[in-house]
């Protein structure tokens, strides 16, 4: 059977969708991942696809068990998100979603780092439009911040590649030691997209701002592409164990106090990535299997949870825990589907999280990382709090908000039902997922002791919730924002800059007037171009053009320096 590079199917789909309208466009959009899946079947086990570009051999597609698993996962996730989006078909969203999926397919089948880089940039440049499609002022601002960090990740990757070439290193997508500038740059580039602590804030900033459908797709693709790349390039890198453990623990505190339920899920996303990063860091066959299977299970239940909250947002126009409650009355189907997602992420037996997360934890114990294991166990109880109980309880039960919205529209319900089915199917028949993992699986999730201990952990944590709730000691839901790392670039930096200008004005040092003049003309230029009446501010594209220009300039410079000298 003839097969092409998986990203080509999605790119062709995106182009066709651009020129189609109405029902025809919807059909093209839904058919694309289906055609992609058929192509993927044909691609399995085929030889690498190599092309020549600028005198370099690029391995456009390389197929093995790991890339195939993520390929299937992303096809399924994209398919579900596109169905979900049919409740209000939007051309921009649909076309961009397909282009975004194309970038992901390109990245996970990339056989070398340069190919990875091209699609890595594509991820940010396409997905930013899923935030913009929300068409609110705060979404526009979040989109700029999002794009800046995505570009920063791409730049770091490119600089890493350049440094690697400078050392005469290989660009193959193969495990590398974390030593020297090149590998650290690449590590950090992956770290931004994987949401490492301190580099994580773009996830919780941007995801709650995107459209209902956009958030579902973004939560599935970008960070898991980074997880895939980490598993390829840095398996068994010890520092990842501690980075991962930190990622599982710190977001759960934020998730407890956060009011915006989609932001709660974004913090929860970082917590789940932590389990995968830890598994990759441990690096044994059991741990890698655990990380990869957890990525698979996670995409299904996290999509489901984001979809259910998207349905709530779509029907009520609200997403704050403090302004929701009691929706089970009129949205019973969404409620049940959300609870299935909540049970899966909490890792109740018979649901998907139970058969994947425990592999990472078993591997941590096996390798003698006792404290890491305890941290993961603590984080597991934390997951139950924010995703298992808080999300369904405050949206669908809790106090009666008086809202009586209609049930979610049919496309949303269909997508959520398929995702819920996948969650239960993986939980009940883990051998199907286990059979697709990179290494042979000997792990047995369903032993009496595992089921009993997991139920003890979860049920007694639930008991604690009931006790605290009855005693009115549960933290009350309050609207507001919680400052995080973004404080540095959203508060300190702008305020600091103004402060510097004022100090300069006051000091009147020798040359102070000149400096001030310089400063003011700089500000005037930026205001002229990007201010309220600025030429580049009439639509947000102006800012992107500027960012892209700077990024492109930096890229050309690096290429010139490194490749030009050879």
């Amino acid at each position, binding site marked *: 059977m003839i097969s092409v590079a998986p990203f080509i199917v999605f790119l062709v789909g995106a182009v066709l969708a651009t020129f189609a309208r109405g029902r025809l466009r919807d059909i093209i959009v839904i058919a694309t991942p289906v055609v992609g899946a058929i192509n993927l079947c044909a691609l399995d086990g085929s030889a690498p696809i190599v092309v020549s570009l600028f005198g370099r051999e690029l391995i456009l597609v390389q197929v093995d068990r790991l890339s195939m698993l993520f390929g299937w996962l992303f096809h399924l996730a994209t398919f579900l998100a596109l169905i979900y989006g049919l409740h209000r078909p939007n051309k921009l969203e649909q076309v961009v979603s397909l282009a975004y999926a194309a970038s992901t397919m390109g990245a996970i089948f990339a056989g070398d780092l340069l190919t990875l880089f091209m699609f890595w940039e594509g991820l940010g440049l396409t997905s930013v439009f899923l935030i913009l499609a929300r068409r609110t002022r705060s979404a526009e601002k979040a989109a700029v911040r999002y794009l800046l960090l995505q570009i920063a990740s791409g730049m770091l990757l490119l600089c890493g590649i350049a440094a690697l070439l400078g050392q005469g290193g290989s660009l193959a997508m193969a495990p590398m030691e974390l030593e020297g500038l090149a590998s650290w740059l690449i590590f950090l580039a992956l770290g931004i997209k994987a949401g490492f602590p301190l580099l994580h804030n773009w996830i919780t900033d941007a995801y709650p701002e995107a459209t209902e459908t956009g958030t579902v797709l973004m939560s599935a693709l970008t960070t898991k592409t980074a997880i895939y790349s980490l598993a390829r390039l840095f398996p068994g890198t010890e520092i990842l164990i501690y980075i991962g453990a930190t990622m599982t623990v710190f977001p759960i505190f934020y998730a407890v106090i956060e009011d915006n339920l989609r932001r709660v899920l974004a913090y929860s996303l970082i917590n789940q990535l932590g389990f995968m990063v830890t598994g990759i860091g441990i690096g044994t066959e059991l741990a890698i299997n655990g990380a990869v299977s957890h990525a698979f299970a996670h995409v299904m239940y996290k999509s489901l949870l984001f979809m259910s909250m998207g349905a709530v947002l779509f029907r009520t126009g609200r997403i704050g825990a403090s302004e929701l409650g009691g929706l089970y009355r009129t949205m019973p189907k969404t409620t049940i589907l959300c609870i299935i997602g909540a049970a899966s992420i909490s890792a109740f037996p018979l649901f998907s999280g139970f058969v994947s997360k425990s592999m990472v934890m078993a591997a941590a114990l096996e390798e003698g990382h006792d404290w890491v*294991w305890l941290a993961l166990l603590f984080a597991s109880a934390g997951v139950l709090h924010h995703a298992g109980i808080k999300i369904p309880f405050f949206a669908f039960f809790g106090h009666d908000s008086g809202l009586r919205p209609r049930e979610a529209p049919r496309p949303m319900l269909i997508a959520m039902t398929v995702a819920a089915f996948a969650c239960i199917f993986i939980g009940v028949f883990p051998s199907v997922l286990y059979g697709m993992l990179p290494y042979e699986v000997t792990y047995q999730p369903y032993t009496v002791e595992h089921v009993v201990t997991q139920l003890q952990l979860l049920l007694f944590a639930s008991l604690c919730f009931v006790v605290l709730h009855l005693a009115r000691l549960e933290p009350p839901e309050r609207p507001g924002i919680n400052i995080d790392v973004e404080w540095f670039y959203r508060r300190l930096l702008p305020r600091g800059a103004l402060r510097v200008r004022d100090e300069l004005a006051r000091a009147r040092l020798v040359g102070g007037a000149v400096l001030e003049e310089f400063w003011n003309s700089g500000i005037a230029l930026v205001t002229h171009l990007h201010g309220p009446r600025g030429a580049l501010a009439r639509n947000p594209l102006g800012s992107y053009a500027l960012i892209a220009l700077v990024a492109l300039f930096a890229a050309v410079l690096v290429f010139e320096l490194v490749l030009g000298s050879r």
Partner: protein
Amino acid sequence: MSEPARPGERRKRYLFDDARNVRRVRWALYAACALVLGADFIVHRHVEHPWEGTFGFYALFGFAAYALLVLIAEGLRRLVARRPDYYDD
């Protein structure tokens, strides 16, 4: 987009409007807790970690971790909570 409750619908009673049903759910949870804790007497566990073997370790850990999480989060809220329009960007 949100639809206010229609006057007629107010009177319709749903599953958990009846406090007895809420109590039933709670009692089911208590019973389940007792059951899985009781299972510790019967199930013989292979332990990887010495603490794991202690009677009711997972139950106690789950309860304590949840309580600790909420306690620390309350402290964190005092530190980081700001009004909704805090960022003036």
